[in-house]
């Protein structure tokens, strides 16, 4: 045995503490069920209303975000609106961020942005839909602010020397969308081709947008 003791999931060999993710609160589940059943019983909403709302939430995904990103890549005036008046700019795509506000951060040759919510799992749901499971995990939330470069590397994102990393902790009333860099060599691409390139992870900022040839490498 190479180590001097068996250890559970509570710590690693370099002494860093890893807290387990919490189980869903049973009290919150009971409360949700009770309120939902009461609302249906009193005729405020129907089961079908709730089902349809869940379906609509689940159906949102990165394709909406990709449309916004590609519009910004191909229309400088839209990009200006998106960066400086983000709520109005996404409303043009039928997205309402209220009561939150949207903050769009642009990746450039000098700066790489990435987003995390250390306190819970705040995420631009009206644009990107349901957050990925890893985004809600305690290890991502703790490490993204503490050692963002190591986390980026684990996501396969190697940054060139000299590029600054800027982490955004989505802890209060803003929701964040990263405007990734448009890959070189896509100048002649159609909107549809470009939209197919833009991934969810590139809009969270744990990855760049890559050409298919690079992605395979």
């Amino acid at each position, binding site marked *: 045995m190479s180590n001097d003791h068996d250890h559970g999931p509570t710590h690693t060999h370099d002494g860093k503490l890893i807290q387990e993710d919490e189980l869903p609160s049973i009290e919150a589940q009971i409360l949700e069920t009770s309120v939902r059943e009461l609302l249906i019983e009193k005729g405020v909403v129907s089961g079908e209303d709730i089902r349809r709302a869940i379906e609509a939430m689940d159906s949102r995904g990165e394709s909406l975000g990709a449309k916004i990103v590609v519009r910004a890549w191909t229309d400088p005036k839209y990009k200006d609106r998106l960066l400086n008046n983000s709520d109005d700019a996404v409303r043009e795509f039928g997205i309402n961020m209220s009561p939150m*506000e949207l903050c769009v951060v642009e990746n450039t040759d000098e700066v790489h942005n990435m987003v995390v919510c250390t306190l819970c799992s705040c995420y631009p749901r009206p644009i990107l839909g349901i957050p990925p499971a890893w985004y809600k995990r305690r290890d991502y939330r703790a490490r993204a*602010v503490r050692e*963002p470069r190591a986390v980026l590397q684990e996501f396969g994102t190697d940054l060139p020397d000299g590029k600054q*990393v800027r*982490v955004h*902790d989505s*802890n209060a*009333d803003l929701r964040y969308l990263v405007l990734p860099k448009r890959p070189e060599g896509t100048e002649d691409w159609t909107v549809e081709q470009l939209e197919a390139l833009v991934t969810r992870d590139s809009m969270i900022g744990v990855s760049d947008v890559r050409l298919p040839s690079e992605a395979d490498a």
Partner: protein
Amino acid sequence: MKNKYSPGDKVQIMQRNQPGHVRTPIYVRGKTGVIERIVGSFPNPELLAYGNSGLPYKMLYRVNFKQSELWPDYDGQADDTLEIEIYEHWMAPA
């Protein structure tokens, strides 16, 4: 609602222990950063979360920190930063 701070101002986040729906993570408490932008006034989440109105509204800012200020042993690049939203009642001039 008037903002007490403006972009570029240096502020120190308050070091206080407060239970409840607090949006100021412990890792920025006591740390010094620079106002990046004024976000605007929002219902106070420390009250709103418990069924209250959230009044009076609180001014919210985005504050930029050097990672080396947050983590003395940070091993990334010297100019790496972190930006986070902090309410006015959680900061003091630095």
